[in-house]
């Protein structure tokens, strides 16, 4: 019977015959959003952007080596090109990407394709591109008050600002953003950071949108220095890939066809506004398993620590140095007993902001969704994190870590450096895990809530926290992960202490 049902199902589908014996196909309902995303990705890599290598690699890999020790990894699972995939993930996460690389490497083309994928018309996309140049004014960028209103108006509210149309577009492209004058950059900052712009007491809102900024050189080679706050609002950096002469034939075919890839973009991979919204929501629903989250936290958490930043325990972090106008390079010396070849804190000048934590998690979720997974894997994070942290983590070039032979090169390639740092962290994670498990158990007790917990239990828990803090400080080296745990424990201690004080002042627990 089951077999009969199965055969019936095999023969039933979207092909049907009508009474005139014509065959009709109904629309496919199977194509899920991540399937469509993958189709879009492969279409771009196969038809629009020539990618000589796929650098986001998944699965175990075999390695080939030269006699000099240069390694070539051959991954066993599907790998992707960061230059195509990261802009695609930016499109679906409504974040801000910076595409950097030399002229003619396909940065603007890639951004335009993303806009076309969002359903915008070609003309609309081209008209909406803001091209950075030294004379770009705020009025050029955002719009201007109507001259007729200016003449007639008796107060400011009567002046109507004619906002530029690109501000409301789903995909915003700012070409060569480092050629925009500083003052205009500030206007752009408020639009990017807060999602609105203001002029003459009137506001325009950007709405949920994805931003693509391009720069030929992000290391200060533009006409104007990019303001730090604007740089900080960029969520992810994408590096243009060099051309490999092995693909000359493809280039020739395109030249001879005399049509640009954007003219050929198939409708099948264009997303409707509803699909983009659903993709955005589905990405947020991707689960981050607890053990993955703990590992991510273990890596990122220790970067902000600097033992030499302050004599005060709580202020032993790099922000203290920054506020004092100091650098890690100046204080990270032999007076700090930590082994610079092992501990990650020495390698960076700064830590990771809360915004960056969120961005990384968002992109890791998007990566997992794109791969068709319901939960984030550690490898999703490992692959995406260097691109998010690219401009956010500054290396300490004077660290003894980089003095070791072969490591100097890591300073020139931030992706390799950040991935190496992550791998180092994961190698130490196992050693530190028993301690962290104890901290987590104590935190778990607190998370259950203090309602109904009596003074005796509170004091008992406080004692447990103190014992663990004492164990950490007396038996372990004060490193980044240990510092994080001690600070975490101290916050538990403070919560219990405040509660105990309140209980003592209010016997019976009533206010």
């Amino acid at each position: 019977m089951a077999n009969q049902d199965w055969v019936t199902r095999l023969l039933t589908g979207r092909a049907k015959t009508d009474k005139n014996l014509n065959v009709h196909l109904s629309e496919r309902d199977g194509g899920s959003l991540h399937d469509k995303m993958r189709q879009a990705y492969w279409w771009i890599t196969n038809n629009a952007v020539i990618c000589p290598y796929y650098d986001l690699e998944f699965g175990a890999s075999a390695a080939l080596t030269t006699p000099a020790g240069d390694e070539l990894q051959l991954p066993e699972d599907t790998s992707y090109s960061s230059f195509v995939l990261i802009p695609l993930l930016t499109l679906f996460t409504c974040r801000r990407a910076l595409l950097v690389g030399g002229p003619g490497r396909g940065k603007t083309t890639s951004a335009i394709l993303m806009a076309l994928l969002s359903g915008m018309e070609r003309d609309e996309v081209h008209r909406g591109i803001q091209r950075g140049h030294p004379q770009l004014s705020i009025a050029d960028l955002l719009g201007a008050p109507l001259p007729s209103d200016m003449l007639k108006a008796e107060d400011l509210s009567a002046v109507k600002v004619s906002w530029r149309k690109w501000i409301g577009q789903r995909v915003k492209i700012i070409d060569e953003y480092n050629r925009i004058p500083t003052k205009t950059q500030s206007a752009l900052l408020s639009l990017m950071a807060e999602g609105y712009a203001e002029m003459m007491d009137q506001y325009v809102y950007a709405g949920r949108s994805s931003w693509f900024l391009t720069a030929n050189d992000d290391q200060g080679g533009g006409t104007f220095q990019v303001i730090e706050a604007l740089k900080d609002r960029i969520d992810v950096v994408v590096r243009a890939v060099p051309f490999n002469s092995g693909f000359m034939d493809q280039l020739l075919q395109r030249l001879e066809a005399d049509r640009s890839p954007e003219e050929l973009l198939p409708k099948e991979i264009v997303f409707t506004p509803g699909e983009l919204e659903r993709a955005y929501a589905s990405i947020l629903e991707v689960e981050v398993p607890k053990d993955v989250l703990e590992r991510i936290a273990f890596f990122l958490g220790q970067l902000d620590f600097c033992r030499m930043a302050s004599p005060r325990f709580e202020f032993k972090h790099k922000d203290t140095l920054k506020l004092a106008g100091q650098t890690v390079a100046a204080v990270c010396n032999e007076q700090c007993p930590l082994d610079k070849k092992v501990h990650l804190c020495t390698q960076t000048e700064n830590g990771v902001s809360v915004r960056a934590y969120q961005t990384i998690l968002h992109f890791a979720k998007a990566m997992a969704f794109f791969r068709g997974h319901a939960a984030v894997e550690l490898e999703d994070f490992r692959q995406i994190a260097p691109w998010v942290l690219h401009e956010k983590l500054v290396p300490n070039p004077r660290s003894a870590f980089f003095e070791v032979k072969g490591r100097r090169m890591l300073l020139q390639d931030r992706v390799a450096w950040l991935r190496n740092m992550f791998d180092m962290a994961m190698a130490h994670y196992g050693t530190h895990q028993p301690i962290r498990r104890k901290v987590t158990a104590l935190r778990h007790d607190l998370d259950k809530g203090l309602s109904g917990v009596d003074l005796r239990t509170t004091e008992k828990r406080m004692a447990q926290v103190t014992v663990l803090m004492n164990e950490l400080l007396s038996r372990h080296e004060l490193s980044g992960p240990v510092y994080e745990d001690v600070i975490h424990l101290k916050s538990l201690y403070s919560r219990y202490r405040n509660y105990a004080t309140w209980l003592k002042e209010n016997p019976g627990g009533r206010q």
Partner: protein
Amino acid sequence: MSTFTDELEANARARFVRWDSALWQALTRGAAQQLGQSLLAAGLSAEEGEELLRAYLQLGAEAVGLGYLYPASAGRQNFFTLAWTDLIPRLLASVPAQERSRVFAQLWNLGENLESAPPWVQRIFWRVGQGLTSLADLETQLRGTSEVALEPPARPLGSRARGHWVDLSQEDSRFLPGALHFLAPTVVCVHDRHRHAVAGREAATQGLWLADTPLTLGAMGCRETPEPASVDSPHLNEALREDPRADAWFATLANEWRTAATLHTSQHVLVFLPE
């Protein structure tokens, strides 16, 4: 007709990511021509023939765009390609006129549904499809196939069994049979001893359908990594005693209905079916 095919291609090119122009050309110049000739030879009027041909090409364009049709150069086959390039051109003309559209729809649905079925199911239907001599009453033919492939056989192996030596080098000349495992009561997947999955390359595997007569299914794309196992079987012991070709087993496998073994010294697999 050429205007019609050009229009179809232009539309499909704008719709599909995976549009393969060369494959479309091969379909229109090869299988479509063959279908047209067979319809004419069967006595259909030019009008009727053209209508069927249009339906065939419309569905064909959709199949090319969705990647259901493989080019000959792909080196692999699926039921959809078999249906569109062989079964329809060869057998549609002999289907009663009022049944032809229904057969089109059935073949499309079958091909599309099989694309999401396990590889071994696809391979069985592809193999069985190669031997079809008629498209009439397709459903009954399918029921017969799926009954044998999916359901446990009525007769257990018992004490009287017949051994068959299946040469897997016919499918893949480098294939060295190694570990094996059951995918269904009568379907065995054999893994190559050396060519495991590495650096993005699939492991080399071969399927065997142990119906009344063993049938090779070709590469299975299996992602399992079975270890060579050893089972005690009176049939295998007898083969070791009586058959000079039987040598030291590399791996053996048995269930209530079938027994199979690979050898250290051979590219053949020995299988036992009820006599």
